[in-house]
């Protein structure tokens, strides 16, 4: 039989050979589905969309190359080993062979994901690009309770917390934070690390809801990978600013749950002692550093300031660093301490809080700002909080306060900083201006619309006149009356009809592909417009109701 002979009906070429379904893949790899899933998660293998779905539409297809890639993964062998091991333990336990079971338990096969990370992210920058999900997940788990039933262990939660705080400490130390947004879902942060925009979400520091219908095994598998990844990333980042990586923290602060503060302290302290090569234990140093500035807050400021002599910072970082320069904040009890601690230090401010382990007391004279969390302050309501991630222009709808912010920014850039006393008035002025602007704009729009309509009508009318003239030339018939009637009838609908016809006709001339594309685009545009319209109508209604109540 020649080598290339393929029996009839067994033809495997093209998509049939290139893609296999998930169950086929599981069979091919001779693993269980759960192991397959773990492998896929660790290796970052995802299903693909073949052009022709040989087995039908309701299957998940994997590329054969991906599956071969999994097949040659050493981790696969490791998983098999672990399965064998588990069987051994089970057998020993059920046979009441306690010695053997104990002995086996001390020799559990382990695996590491280091090389997988290297493989998936050949360069450090690649890992930064893919860090969003990782950070969100780790931050979420840092806020979750340990549940034995779901196999969420306390160590992992602690590890997550540690990793997330380390990351935050790095970001705040290097002033890489760019955008913060408090949403209902939590707090979004965006940092710019090595030119990569990294966005993550931290849940609000409250007891989280743990739904029952979630497969925590999958999440934990992801978490396992993410923990390793973030560890390596953190190490790399810490080394880049000449810090030792697993940072050793002041246990006292740690016990007070001021981990982030401890970390920042550690980071700053290391920065201080960089020059002098003192051979002291890290722990001792951390403690010392804590004792030192706790007595005098000025020292802490110095720490922050001293960190400010690096030349390789871009313009943005410099701006971010000096945003809260020479400002001292004090957080009240009800304020979410951790996030603000992170944000304020990231923008170069000095911060303290009410409670144990705070660097300075509320009575300190150097405090410029006290942060409280109240619905109102002397009848002034908070302005709306807007997302910094939205491009208002592209969205088609600019909220009122966004304009105000823009104006204030412009004012700040011109360095005509409003006086602290006049700030409120200014702000209101800005709002007034804004309202006027909007009214102007809408008026202009409406006028333009009217003008357009008029012009079209005029044109139409001219055309009709012309046709009339021509028509009478050809047929000297008393049809003008009928025609006029028709013209009157269609007067209202004519415009719409005209536009529609125009649209339809150009569609007729399009190729099918383009037509489909055009239609899809139109649909999305219409959807966008609808959402903007609802916003505008709501706004109108609100204004109306306000007016009626005021009158």
């Amino acid at each position, binding site marked *: 039989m020649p080598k290339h002979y393929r029996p009839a009906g067994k033809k495997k070429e093209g998509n049939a050979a290139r893609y296999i379904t998930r169950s086929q893949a599981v069979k091919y790899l001779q693993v269980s589905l759960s192991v397959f899933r773990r492998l896929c998660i660790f290796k970052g293998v995802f299903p693909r969309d073949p052009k022709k779905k040989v087995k039908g539409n309701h299957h998940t297809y994997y590329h054969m190359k*991906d599956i071969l890639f999994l097949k040659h993964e050493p981790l696969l062998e490791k998983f098999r080993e672990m399965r064998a091991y588990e069987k051994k333990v089970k057998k020993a336990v059920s046979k009441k062979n306690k010695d053997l079971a104990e002995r086996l338990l001390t020799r559990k096969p382990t695996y590491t994901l280091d090389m997988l990370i290297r493989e998936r992210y050949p360069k450090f920058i690649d890992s930064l690009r893919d860090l969003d999900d990782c950070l969100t997940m780790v931050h979420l788990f840092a806020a979750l309770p340990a549940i034995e039933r779901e196999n969420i262990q306390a160590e992992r939660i602690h590890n997550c917390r540690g990793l997330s705080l380390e990351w935050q400490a790095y970001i705040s130390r290097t002033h890489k934070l760019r955008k913060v947004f408090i949403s209902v879902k939590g707090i979004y942060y965006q940092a710019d690390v090595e030119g990569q925009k990294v966005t993550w979400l931290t849940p609000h520091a409250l007891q989280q809801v743990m739904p029952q219908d979630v497969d925590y095994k999958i999440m934990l598998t992801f978490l396992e990978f993410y923990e390793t990844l973030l560890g390596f990333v953190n190490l790399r980042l810490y080394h880049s600013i000449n810090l030792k990586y697993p940072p050793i923290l002041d246990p006292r602060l740690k016990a007070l749950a001021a981990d982030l503060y401890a970390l920042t302290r550690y980071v700053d302290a290391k920065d201080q002692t960089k020059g002098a090569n003192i051979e002291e234990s890290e722990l001792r140093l951390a403690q010392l550093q804590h004792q030192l500035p706790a007595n005098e807050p000025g020292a802490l400021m110095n720490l922050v300031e001293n960190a400010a002599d690096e030349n390789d910072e871009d313009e943005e970082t410099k701006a971010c660093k000096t945003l809260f320069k020479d400002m001292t904040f004090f957080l009240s009890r009800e304020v979410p301490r951790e996030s603000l601690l992170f944000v304020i230090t990231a923008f170069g401010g000095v911060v303290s809080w009410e409670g144990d382990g705070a660097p300075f007391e509320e009575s300190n004279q150097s405090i410029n700002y006290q942060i409280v969390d*109240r619905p109102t302050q002397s009848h002034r309501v908070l302005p709306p909080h807007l997302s910094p991630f939205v491009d208002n222009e592209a969205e088609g709808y600019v909220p009122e306060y966004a304009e105000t912010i823009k104006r204030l920014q412009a004012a700040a850039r011109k360095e005509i900083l409003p006086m602290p006393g006049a700030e409120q008035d200014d702000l209101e002025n800005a709002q007034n201006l804004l309202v006027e602007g909007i009214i102007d704009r809408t008026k202009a729009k409406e006028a333009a619309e009217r003008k357009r309509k008029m012009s079209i009508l005029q044109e139409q009318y001219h055309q009709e006149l012309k046709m009339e003239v021509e028509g009478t030339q050809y047929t000297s018939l008393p049809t003008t009356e009928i025609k006029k009637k028709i013209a009157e009838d269609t007067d209202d609908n004519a415009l719409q009809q005209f536009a529609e016809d125009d649209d339809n006709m150009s569609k007729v001339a399009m190729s099918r592909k383009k037509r489909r594309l055009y239609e899809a685009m139109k649909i999305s545009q219409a959807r966008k417009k609808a959402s903007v319209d609802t916003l505008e109508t709501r706004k109108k209604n609100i204004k109306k109701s306000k007016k009626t109540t005021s009158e």
Partner: protein
Amino acid sequence: MRKDGKKLKDDDLKPIEKEVVVNGSEVPSDSEDGSVESPVVSDDDESFSEGDDSSRNSDSESESGSEHSDFSEDEDGENPSNEGGLSDGVDDLNQGDQSASDDSREVVDESDSSEDEVGPRNTIGDVPLEWYKEEEHIGYDVAGKKIKKKERLDKLDSFLARTDDSNSWRKITDEIEDEEVELTKEETKLIRRLLKGQAPHADFDPHAPYIDWFAWDGAKHPLSNAPEPKRRFIPSKWESKKVVRYIRAIRKGLITFDKPKEEPRFYNLWGDESSSTEKAGHGLSYIPAPKPKLPGHEESYNPSLEYIPTQEEISAYQLMFEEDRPKFIPKRFTSLRSVPAYEKSVRESFDRCLDLYLCPRARKKRINIDPESLKPKLPSRKDLKPYPTTCYLEYKGHKGPVKSLSTDPSGQYIASGSLDGTVRIWEVETGRCIKIWELGEPVHHVAWNPLPELPILAVSMGQDVFILNTGIEKEEHKMIADLLHVETSTAQDDSESMASAVSWSQCERYEGIRIKHFKTVSSVEWHRKGDYFSTVMPADILGCFSIFTLTCFLRESKAVLIHLLSKKLTQRLPFKLHGLPVSSTFHPTRSIFFVSTKKNVRVYDLVKKKFIKKLEAGVREISSISIHPGGDNVIVGSKDGKLCWFDMDLSSKPYKILKSHPKDITNVAFHRTYPLFASCSDDCTAYVFHGMVYSDLNQNPLIVPLEILHGHASANGRGVLDCKFHPRQPWLFTAGADSIIKLFCH
């Protein structure tokens, strides 16, 4: 102490020098050297230490001198009894304890070398030390005098001394000699080696290459002729027992191993970036997962008021389908502390996980362009004038949907057939109805004879086709009457089995001919010369099968008939149709016949009786066909609202498919002189297109949509049923299901 030692040595040396002088003649004998050296090898460490001492000192001495010093020291312990005793006694009196012992040693050193014994230098003899534990002295010398113990420092002093002196660890007390000895570096090394169980000398090679002194070469016989013993082939029992013992010990935890050194969990994985240039992946393109959507204003804890839906809107959400319902309902909180935990955070994170590993990924090109730019650039419609744009006239009178229209070749009249069973003739310019035939049955199709001098009309109605005299042209009335006269027997004469089903007969009532078919006739089309006409009987399948049990072949070929009016003849199409015919037309200039079946259009040459070509429309169901007056282009309207333009020279596939109507196209028409064509549809509109055909074969036809004509109302789901162009003017007549005929002019 060191100093003491040195001084002591110096003292030692002088007498030796003396001795050398004394024994000068005897010394340089080899034998004596050998005898002296042998104990060196075998001796204990003390002897070594002495030797080392001497070697240290030797640098200041002559070689012979050092030799002698060696020599003398080696034998120093042996002769306490000889001369030392004498001098000792003398010294003892003079000096203290220390000096006494020193002296005694001096004496010992000076003793003769003839005796090989090595013994303690102080002369207490071989007496256990504990005997003198309580005493002041530690023994007696030869003279029986007490040898006093040396003054010991008390513990505190010794401790202090030890802390002061960094070399204190080297010092040891020699109980027997009752003195403190400081070990040299070499000595400590030597001790260490001994402790390790190595050879004391550093230069001793324990693994020196084995020199086989036995001469194997000449041996004729093996040393042993015994066979190899069995034990050499079986595993050692004792070894295995030992292994078992070890295993048990390990299992019981008696033997513990060193824990493997813990490596740092994280390290610089990426190294320096320059080294990590290896190709990533495995040949497949990696598609990164799309990033989660960034939050908008509405997700804020305190959004602007307009983002919060009203109560009615929220309750309206409940009525929506699960999929359409918004996933997130914005809410407003007055302060941050009133914001509750987001109950879906774990859920959303989980969903994201699922997306990451379960969702097939594909790269999609997202084009960000203005949709208007997709519209093709069409030539300005103004340049393509004239074309029908507006409704000028309405012809009202029919009671039912007007099924068919036909224009007089001169363009003065139109005929219309309606489902109310009437055929009317209208004057185009006035809209006046000239003539009405009440036929009684729904009229499907009307067709004017293309000859202007023959104003007769073919009307299909049920199973009959009527040829009617319109009576418009008065002069040629006679000729027409002749033409429309049928002798009753002619139809029966036809020998063909086919024709038997078709009967020509005179119809007195309407002054015309009645051609009775065996099935419902849907359309009648005239040949350009006005003598032939074709009728199409589409499959009235259900009826057909029950009445005539015809074969498929017969049914199909019989579905299209060609009649010859002048001879009153009927013949069937001598071709196989391969499908159900829908309509037929004659070529405008040549003797070519087009039959459109539901799927495609078949083209026959009637003279050569040959099948020419098949035009594949690729649409669901063809409804109508029209031929360009040039004859090379065909348009086909279909029931899925598509209009196909065929260029017969180009291909059998459509040159262009225009998806114009959302509903069925009922009819298509070409203008006879202007480059216009139109399609009308059940969606109550008619499209007018510019369709320019160039004589240059390299230039493709130019098709531009010009106008959409509205006006007809929908009735029973039908819209415009027929459209025809005026033969001279760029006007379009449309017949609607609302029983109105409209004229659209430019």
